[in-house]
């Protein structure tokens, strides 16, 4: 079992997300005395009778003044079983931008709904974005159950409605769990509540501690973007030439047959090095240095891949773009694509379709893509690069779209026809 779980939260305004995150920090004793003192002082200043736990996580002064959250914030808590990195994504403004950011690294997402309102439009939109980004597991936290008198029937209706929606997005029954909680009171967050005797599942924290993390792509074919060439040229290491990077997928062992892309040079792995010594095997997520049997001309941006199962090398592909900029996108736009350790020039040849998140349907041939919209496009690159479909290898199917003029990040890109992941929406 992996000991680190990366998760993201998502919810609409006033669903009590900051309070839930504050509650998780508080109940895992990740809030220390001086932070709690500050919250208590601030709560008294605001005329509140109990400490407002949401103040633990509302970071910037402008947010505290307006009582809102404006950007993704990262929180850290730990139990003896696991450490958690939580991307706390705000629910209202720029929600796609923030949800996409949080979801890109999340192994699980906690979606919040208000028990009095149930599944709302924004819940469906958030779930669609999480499905698009391939977040493997969802938790629906049905919050404020205290305000509906801990009514089992009402909870069941919400849980069933969400399960049906998640299933339409491709989530299996076992990958989605609904939990009745009250972040304010603490019901079923870290401690089982006596108020919901009818609920027999785990508390939120128990679930986070025990949920199997999506299998690291150990089974997947080896993918290794070369970040940097290590050539000491010191008296001790006059001829050392190692290729440094972080394994994006699969595993590597000395003796493995590999191919260096995009040029397609075949060779064998001679050694897998780290500062702590040579490794017998290294897997996805490890930062290592690979030494090859042949003296090849390899540079930053090349990809070392399994010779038996190599990615496609192409200068043209279809991709989903989550548009994150206020500058709109039109067909014909010239952009930069950063994929792995390689940045190339590109042109958006066609805007094929747009995901209408209001109607949860697909709109063909849009004129433009605007901030927070998700579109399917055809990209042409100035040179060939090795790409995987995002669905089979996320780390080598993901890319950034960058504005060549000012360097801004314009979009999150996912290689392949991703809209099929949005399920039966087209028939609606």
């Amino acid at each position: 079992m992996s000991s680190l779980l990366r998760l993201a939260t998502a919810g609409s305004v006033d669903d009590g997300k900051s309070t839930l995150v504050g509650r998780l920090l508080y109940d895992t004793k990740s809030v220390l005395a001086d932070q709690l003192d500050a919250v208590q002082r601030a709560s008294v200043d605001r005329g509140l009778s109990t400490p407002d736990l949401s103040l633990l996580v509302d970071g910037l002064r402008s947010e505290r003044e307006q009582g809102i959250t404006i950007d993704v914030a990262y929180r850290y808590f730990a139990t003896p079983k696991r450490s958690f990195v939580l991307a706390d994504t705000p629910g209202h403004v720029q929600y796609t931008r923030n949800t996409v950011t949080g979801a890109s690294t999340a192994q699980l997402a906690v979606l919040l709904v208000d028990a009095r309102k149930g599944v709302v439009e924004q819940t469906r939109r958030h779930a669609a974005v999480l499905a698009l980004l391939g977040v493997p597991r969802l938790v629906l936290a049905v919050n404020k159950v205290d305000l509906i008198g801990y009514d089992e029937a009402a909870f069941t209706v919400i849980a069933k409605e969400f399960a049906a929606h998640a299933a339409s997005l491709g989530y299996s029954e076992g990958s989605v769990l609904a939990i009745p909680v009250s972040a304010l009171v603490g019901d079923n967050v870290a401690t089982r509540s006596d108020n919901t005797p009818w609920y027999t599942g785990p508390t939120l924290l128990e679930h986070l501690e025990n949920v199997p993390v999506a299998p690291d792509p150990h089974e997947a074919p080896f993918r290794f973007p070369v970040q940097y060439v290590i050539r000491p040229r010191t008296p001790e290491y006059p001829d050392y030439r190692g290729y440094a990077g972080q394994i994006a997928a699969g595993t590597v062992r000395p003796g493995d047959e590999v191919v260096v892309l995009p040029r397609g040079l075949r060779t064998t792995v001679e050694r897998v090095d780290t500062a702590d010594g040579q490794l017998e095997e290294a897997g996805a997520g490890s930062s290592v240095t690979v030494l090859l049997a042949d003296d090849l001309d390899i540079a930053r941006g090349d990809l070392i891949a399994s010779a038996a199962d190599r990615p496609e090398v192409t200068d043209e592909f279809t991709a989903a773009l989550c548009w994150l900029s206020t500058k709109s996108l039109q067909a014909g736009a010239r952009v930069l694509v950063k994929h792995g350790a390689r940045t190339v020039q590109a042109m958006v040849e066609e805007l094929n379709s747009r995901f209408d998140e209001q109607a949860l349907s697909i709109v063909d041939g849009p004129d433009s893509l605007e901030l927070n919209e998700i579109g399917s496009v055809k990209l042409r690159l100035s040179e060939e690069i090795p790409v995987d479909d995002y669905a089979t290898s996320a780390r080598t199917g993901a890319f950034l779209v960058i504005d060549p003029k000012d360097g801004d990040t314009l979009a999150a890109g996912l290689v392949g026809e991703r809209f099929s992941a949005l399920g039966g929406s087209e028939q609606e």
Partner: protein
Amino acid sequence: MTTLEAATDAARDNLIALESEAIHIFREVAGEFDRPVILFSGGKDSTLLLHLAIKAFWPAPVPFPLLHVDTGHNFEEVIDFRDRVVEKYGLRLVVAHVQDWIDDGRLVERPDGTRNPLQTQPLLDTITEHKFDAVFGGGRRDEERARAKERIFSLRNAFGQWEPRRQRPELWNLYNGRHRPGEHVRVFPLSNWTEADVWNYIAREGVDLPSIYYAHKRKVYRRDGMWLTEGPWGGPREGEKVEELTVRYRTVGDGSCTGAVESTASTVEDVIAEVQASRLTERGATRADDRLSEAAMEDRKREGYF
């Protein structure tokens, strides 16, 4: 497997993931920037940064120089340590002395004698002078609320300022280091580490630290709820009683505003036990500069502080 063993395994796997992430970030900067520099004070976070940089490029030497903004209010043990490390690894160290800025009138000493806020100008001037385009810092998101929203690659404008609205979304492990001439990027490889992670890693790797991080006897006096020590920055005021206590430092900054904590933790294992039991964040416990106001850190970041 006992609970304790499981917890130990969990902590170790977590450290492996954090180390790989930090090494990836160092290599990414080496690949994309022309003139990176590591902020290095000799404190524990910057010592850890350097340790990770050495591992990232091994067996080649670290391809960046170090930069220390020296307030002149230093703990002798830390400066000795800094110089020993530079010597041992054959590194190049650039020092910006705050005193030089005060001497030629670019900065004015504050009435309270604290020099931490005076570091910003020398830092920005030195970045400009040396045309540094990526500046590694040891900042962590768990330190303070304004830092919880900090990016790993944090874009600074030509005035060195952090603009919350211009920060780029960070997706997957793809970092965008593009910047315009005159701008630079602050890079925080320890973003996802907690104080407990830092100490557990220091223990695992046997990282050497300045002696003041461990319990020692020291003459201290109480001010604003903190144990301060006498030094070039001044000493006790009238009515402030000097006592000799067994203390250690959890953070090391400008001597005038860095407080010691009472502690008998004399080994790294003792410190880990103490951190786990501690009920105060390290900044809240020991840094007067963050106590100035609820939004103190946010304001200083906007001005171009670390």
